[in-house]
């Protein structure tokens, strides 16, 4: 018997074995898909979940600090609250719309979205929308960010009218902005139409997503990072990335809003806030609840929302409300 035949024979044997392979479809996975805005939180949470640090690593799993009395590892503890073993978390980055669609189809367990489902599907019936079970895990603020050159030229405070003018195309040069002393055409950076961010931006600025005359937008980028990169690479751009994506290279400007007050993005009353949603489909299963409870707990809020990302945590009452919405622990 020569080597070729041996190889062919063992390949055949392999195929027969494959047919009886028990782990053909691993079922014990929590699937998450959706918005790039919410994604960083999920990414940190899954990283901790996957590493599953034991209680002795108090740097990563400071259970005592948060008044949790356990000797289990991190993921084991949170899964154990619902009587489950640790499961795998599979996350995928796409877009709010895709996350919502996939969670409705049952392709994923949790759809993450940076916009409320009623804005995403304005035409849908209330009954349909109610099948989406919302969980708010934190807040993002859309900052108005400009290229460094623009900021350094003095354009640090914009009014709402000016912003509307820029995006509607009535103001095309930085000269047209009151606080500015910068002679350069404006490059207004938008987001891909249909994305959660774009929807929320329109809702916040114009009251509705269906605004058809945003002719001032020069460039539309798919995700926050591309918006940021466009701002950094240009010398004349303005855009609205999430607060997570503000750096020294693309500083945020202050905005004078309808009420006459001027807000910076750090201020409590910043008008362009938006919740970070995690949607489950028709109620919340134990598996989903275990992971959500970790994020919604004091520990999760501190570590995943506050420390590692620049998002804003839930207030105490909101946190309590969200936790109440989850199934009871066993």
């Amino acid at each position, binding site marked *: 018997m020569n080597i070729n035949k041996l190889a062919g024979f063992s390949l055949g044997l392999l195929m027969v074995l494959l047919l009886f392979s028990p782990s053909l479809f691993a079922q014990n996975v929590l699937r998450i898909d959706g918005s790039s805005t919410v994604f960083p939180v999920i*990414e*940190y949470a899954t990283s901790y979940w996957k590493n599953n640090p034991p209680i002795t690593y108090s740097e990563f799993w400071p259970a005592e600090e948060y008044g949790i009395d356990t000797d289990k590892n991190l993921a084991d503890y949170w899964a154990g609250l619902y009587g489950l073993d640790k499961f795998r978390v599979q996350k995928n*980055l796409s877009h709010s719309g895709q996350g919502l669609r996939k969670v409705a189809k049952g392709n994923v367990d949790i759809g993450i979205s940076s916009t409320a489902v009623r804005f995403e599907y304005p035409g849908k019936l209330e009954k349909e929308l109610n099948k989406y079970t919302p969980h708010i895990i934190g807040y993002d603020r859309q900052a108005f960010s400009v290229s460094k050159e623009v900021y350094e030229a003095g354009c640090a405070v914009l009014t709402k009218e000016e912003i509307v003018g820029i995006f509607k195309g009535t103001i095309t040069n930085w000269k047209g902005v009151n606080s500015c002393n910068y002679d350069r055409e404006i490059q207004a950076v938008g987001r891909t139409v249909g994305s959660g961010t774009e929807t929320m931006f329109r809702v916040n600025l114009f009251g509705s997503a269906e605004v058809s005359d945003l002719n001032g937008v020069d460039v539309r980028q798919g995700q926050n990072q591309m918006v940021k990169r466009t701002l950094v690479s240009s010398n004349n751009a303005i855009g609205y990335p999430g607060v997570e994506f503000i750096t020294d290279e693309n500083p945020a400007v202050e905005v004078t809003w309808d009420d006459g007050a001027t807000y910076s993005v750090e201020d409590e009353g910043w008008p362009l806030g938006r919740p970070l949603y995690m949607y489950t489909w028709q109620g919340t299963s134990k598996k989903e609840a275990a992971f959500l409870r970790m994020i919604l707990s004091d520990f999760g809020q501190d570590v995943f929302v506050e420390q590692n990302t620049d998002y804003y945590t839930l207030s105490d009452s909101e946190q309590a409300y969200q936790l109440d919405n989850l199934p009871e622990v066993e």
Partner: protein
Amino acid sequence: MISAREKAIRYIMIVLWLVLAVVSLLISGWLVVEPGAISSEAISAFGGILLAGVGITIIVFNLGDNYQPPISHFLISILLLLLGGVVFLFFPDQGVALPNLEGDITAKLANLLLFLLVGFAGIWAGLLFFRENPAQNRELAVKYFTWLSVLIPLGVLVFFVSYTIIEGSSVINWQFISSSTNLMMGKVGIFPAIMGTFSLIIGATVLAVPLGVGAAVFLTEYAKRTWIRQAVGVTADCLWSTPSIVFGLFGYVFLVPRITGHSTLLAGQIILAAMLLPLTIATSTEALSSVPDEFRSGSLALGASRWWTIRKVILPSSVPSIITGILLGIGRIAGETAPIMLIAVASNTSAPSFLTSSFPYFQLGSLFREVDALPYRMYSIYKAGVGGSIDEAWGTALVLIVLVLMFYGLGITVRSYYRRRRGW
């Protein structure tokens, strides 16, 4: 005929001109990397010298013993020099030939056209001169011109690769390549993406190669009628030129719902196999038809059947060429992003694994999960900042380029090695 002294002068001019061209290319490359590194006056001056150099070269080329240039050609060369001078003297603050005409798009376009016009006018005038010259001059000019036009893309290639190497090498270390990203520990690594890319490639090869080589064997050994060959050739061509995003769309509406409903490694392998297939068919057909007919008749005359002939004579003697084609094809698909973006990948997933510690020591579950892949990882860093900073994108790009070049290099080496060795 021209004297030796004149010949020497011409060569010197050519060398001078080439040096100028190369230096100007380098400078423009440098400017692209670091805008503002050189003052615009310097550029204008240099541009002037360049154009003057072209003009002088043209004139010197024409100083043959028995050459009397028509007056119009002198006029053209002088006009060219004047034009260059005007552009560079009067618009010194805007770099090469680009006066700032304040905002108006039409003017900018006109600028670009002017720039191109000057260039083409120069070349045209030069060729016009050469036409009246001894034919050797023209041939020399064409030769250097075409040589330059090979050097430009090669320069771009070298520049791109070396830029990636410079940017990427600072990120690359063993940990970056051999581990996965762990945000909790603050570590970044692309191991899952490397493994994912390899699984995609291997799966695609396993699916496409038997089909492609089989098709090629049928076409060269069995199909007597040429219309069958034509038909398969045309379909393979069409498949090859189908845009990669269309493959992605097709996978998205056709494969994904039929496998699990979400992105899977298997879907990516199938779509990449569909992209690899036409390349395999084309290169294998070529390899098989280059096997001399004497081998076929020799084997058949000994009483061997067609299939035995194929198996024992034709395939063994064309294996190196077939492998070369496959390797080049793999190099092509390894870097594809658009087709797998929608159907196979997810960022920062763990590496696919097919081995387990318990019986039967392997599992196929990974086929039905998302994978990470090098090109997609680059794209997601660019797009969403996921999985690391821009430095990591350079690192990933470097690994990807090295991988692709490895396949190409391997393919080309196999080809040249066996071309030297084979006996027909």
